[in-house]
């Protein structure tokens, strides 16, 4: 019976999300490569996004600040700009310069001295309160994802648990941050966007729908490229080999999916329990001994098993041009590089940032 339903679904609703969590297999086979990758510089609390400018300077957003880090190992960090609210995604465009997403406000352009050059705040009169990712086309157009109309991006756990109807958007605007228009609406927490290598379309990641969709740059109906990721996909960026880097900030677990089906319990949990103690995914920051435990996470002979059901996890995947995972880098349940939110590649290495553990690591790039 369920097989028949699957077949019908496959044929008539090819884009519908499938709900069984796939096992980590094929390109996603677990390893320790992210765990073992060399860490650059000191810990950087709540480091979130990375971007290179055209001279090879690395910009890192962390908390309220944007830091500029110089090569070769980016351990020399200086504050470029500071905001009133958390800074999230970053992008670099030859036309506009550095673009930064500011929680609760929108996207701004930051010039070389750290001064704000302009804002995009209210396209169509609807404020961008949750700018999660930004990408630029070569000709200068800026593409931006607004995760949700209900929560700023720090409140991602709440947004996941509230399970409201999807309200995320993809917004496009000119290089001068003007002429904004909404390319797509009602997306389920779009958290990553990249312009494809051929500059004709966009890959948009929806975290809560666990999928990667392809949009035409001019808008129109999307096509789902990958559905049912095993984790919550986050930012996506170009890889040098014609593929893409995808950061997955946590893994889906059966418990989380179960709690997402338990409406009463979830409501009570959101009401009564502090957010950092909720059952559900986490970035791995702020350990508290009262957080919920699962049977498989009980230490045996003093060892936390790496295959334990993960509350937080570190996962970076390299996708080919069609979105299929070619290889992946893991920091497993027992690891110390969790909650990867961004990966960028330049000069033969890819830098991944663990927001949970506040670290930046360099991953090898082999052809």
């Amino acid at each position: 019976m369920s097989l028949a339903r699957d077949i019908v679904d496959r044929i008539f609703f090819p884009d519908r999300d499938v709900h069984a969590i796939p096992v980590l297999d094929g390109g996603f086979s677990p390893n320790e490569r992210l765990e073992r990758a060399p860490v650059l510089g000191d810990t950087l609390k709540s480091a979130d996004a990375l971007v290179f400018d055209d001279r090879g300077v690395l910009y890192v957003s962390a908390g309220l600040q944007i830091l500029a880090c110089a090569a070769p190992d980016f351990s020399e960090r200086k504050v470029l700009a500071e905001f009133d609210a958390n800074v999230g995604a970053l992008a670099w465009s030859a036309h506009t310069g550095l673009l930064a997403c500011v929680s609760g406000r929108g996207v701004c352009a930051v010039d070389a001295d750290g001064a704000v050059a302009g804002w995009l705040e209210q396209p169509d009169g609807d404020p961008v309160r949750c700018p999660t990712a930004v990408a630029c086309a070569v000709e200068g157009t800026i593409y931006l994802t607004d995760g949700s109309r209900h929560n700023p991006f720090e409140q991602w756990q709440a947004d996941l648990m509230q399970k409201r109807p999807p309200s995320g958007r993809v917004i496009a605007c000119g290089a001068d941050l003007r002429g904004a228009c909404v390319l797509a609406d009602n997306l389920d927490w779009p958290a990553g966007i990249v312009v494809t290598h051929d500059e004709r379309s966009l890959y948009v990641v929806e975290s809560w729908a666990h999928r990667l969709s392809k949009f035409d740059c001019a808008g129109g109906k999307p096509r789902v490229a990958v559905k049912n990721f095993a984790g919550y996909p986050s930012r996506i960026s170009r890889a040098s080999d014609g593929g893409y880097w995808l950061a997955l900030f946590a893994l889906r677990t059966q418990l989380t999916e179960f709690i997402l089906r338990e409406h009463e319990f979830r409501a009570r949990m959101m009401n009564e329990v502090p957010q950092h103690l909720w059952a559900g995914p986490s970035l791995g920051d702020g350990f508290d001994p009262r957080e919920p435990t699962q049977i498989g996470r009980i230490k045996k002979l003093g060892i936390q098993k790496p295959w334990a059901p993960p509350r937080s996890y570190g996962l970076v995947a390299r996708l080919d041009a069609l979105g299929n995972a070619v290889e992946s880098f893991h920091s497993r349940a027992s690891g110390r590089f969790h909650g990867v939110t961004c990966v960028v590649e330049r000069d033969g290495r890819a830098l991944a940032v663990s927001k949970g553990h506040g670290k930046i690591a360099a991953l090898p790039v082999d052809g």
Partner: protein
Amino acid sequence: MNALRRLWYRYSPQLIIGELLEKRWMEPIVPFTLMLLVFAAFIVTIPSYASIVQLQQLMRSFPEQAFVAMAMALSILSGGIDLSVGAVFAMADFLTLYFLQVQDWPLPLTIVAVLAWGALIGAVNGGLIAYAKTRPFLTTMVVLIILRAAYNKITGVYAAELAGASVDSAAWDFLGAGFVFGIPINMVCLIVIGAIAHLYLTRIRSGVHIMAVGSSRKAARHAGINVQRSLFLAYVLAGMLSALAGLLYAARQNSAGTDTGVGWEVNALAAAVLGGISLAGGRGTISRALMGAAIIFLLINGLVQLGTHGSLTSAAIGAILLAAVAFNVKFVKNKGKILQKIYVSPSLVEFSPPASIERGGGTVFAENDRLKDSEAIALDKIEGPEDIILDRSDNLYTVNRNGSIIRFLAPNYEKREEFARIGGRPLGMAIDRDESIIVCVAGMGVYGVRQDRTIFKVTDETNRTWYRFKDDSRLWLADDLDIAADGKIYFSDATTRYDLSEWALDGFEGRGNGRLVCYDPATKTTRTVLANLAFPNGVCISHDGQAVLWVSTWLCRIYRYWIAGPQTGKLEIIADNLPGYPDNINRASDGNYWLALVGLRSPVYDIAMADPSFRTRMVKQIPPDEWLCPGINFGCVVKFDDNGEVLESLWDPGGVSHPTITSMREHKGYLYIGGLENNRIGRVPLPGADKSWTGWDSYWGDKTKKGAASAVAHARADHVVSA
């Protein structure tokens, strides 16, 4: 409303159904119900069906068919089939009449001769099948055909002679129409022989061998059972049962017609299958065959009484049998799955927020680093030291997950030796006056090891709870114990519904599944002292020897049960709503008590405990590794006094060296720390503690019993034993 909910979840009918389904005797529930239904249906449709006369009539007609069904069942249980039962029955009927009426043999001789006839045919069947290795189906069918043909021939020859003859014997008449206490004599025979047959197949060696051969001939042979003899015996017995049926039939009907016994083998086969006896052999009982036979008999009899046309009767019976057998097959096959789905039956446990454990939060539970730099003893030389204990010469004993007790020799605890290997999963320990180690062994009971390393059993069972279906007389999960001054051993049997490996399921239930048990060495008896406790875990005799302190892990409480003094028998809660799950309790040198909190309460889990249906769905929908559970990776050690007041706590933040802290033991100024799943024993110095204090001296030394702590403490709450 909530009280009602609590009550519902506490006495959930699921519990009873779950424990019922576990019973072997629940397997024939489908045929049994069908039998009652058929009977009830005819009571409704046929006037005065349930009258005494009518019932006597039914009982009079039933036994012959029942014996034939029993014979069939016996052959099927042995792994074969006996199709000749109907023909043996008919021939026995004829022979009885022939011997009695034509040959004028006395009745006893006739009975012996007829039974011998049945045994002879059984021996032919059994000899061919067991020793000549012929197929049971074909062999017995051939015997059926031959006997049937012979019967038709012979009855034809003697028809006239039999018709004219008669027997003048009171015994013979009694056999045909007598009553014992209002029950027809042949029914009495059936009851007696049925009971004997049941006992034979389940209790007597050769009967059990027949069942074993039926289950698996190969395994039976490997087990040293004489397969051929067992098979032979099964057919001989089947033949004798059929012959007995023929004898009783003759006594009742006094005739041998051409259609006597025709098709009875088919009815018998149908009865066996309907009763749920597996055609593959080895699975089934005599009572199930009788149930099947009763259903068929009642159906035929009832439909005939209703005046249904013969062919319609057959069709109706066929249809009902088909449906019943199909349903029964499904039921028997899926019973385990049903049980699995409904066995776990969570109850409602409502917590209020516990005291803060925040570092610097100002409470006695505030996190600190006092265990952080503990010295590791036996690192990686021990697997799961749930409890530790030190003897008078400072040697350290601990339990290992492979079922042994390991000793580390003083003074540096480098030398490891296996002190004793008991098996099971040893947990809490104590040292008695003779310096033997007494240990609770999960899955086995309470055992002891003398200093000369000999192992002895203390106890492995207690009194059974009379109102429970589940047999809880065996100790299920003996967890921790302590020994009172008079030598009585008080120990906790944490749960009677789950094994140690399934402790989390018991946690999901949060119900009073456990008990506090006492072994009295004077009378060598074991009695349950307190029943229906929610995972009683640590047990400790108070310093003054007047009370047993014990904890309920799932309810996060410390209880005191008075065993001596003016309040004997009183149970009270002395600490409630602890921020973690309490485990073992042991005495401290300053007159207080150490308590291990094996895990910390998580607010999410507390909500789950207040939502039983959520937990039920969780257990059903997601795999065990993903279940939410009490957070036993992080715990601490606390000290409390006789009033249940917590005085201090010792922490290993993050559970780096000491996850799953289940016990601690003070000895000569040090505190030793054990963990259910750990790979080490920790040791920290206790500043200010009595450097000469040992546990053994506290219990058995000269300076004990000087009325140490406060004599009487006041109760903190009414006693509520389980959630």
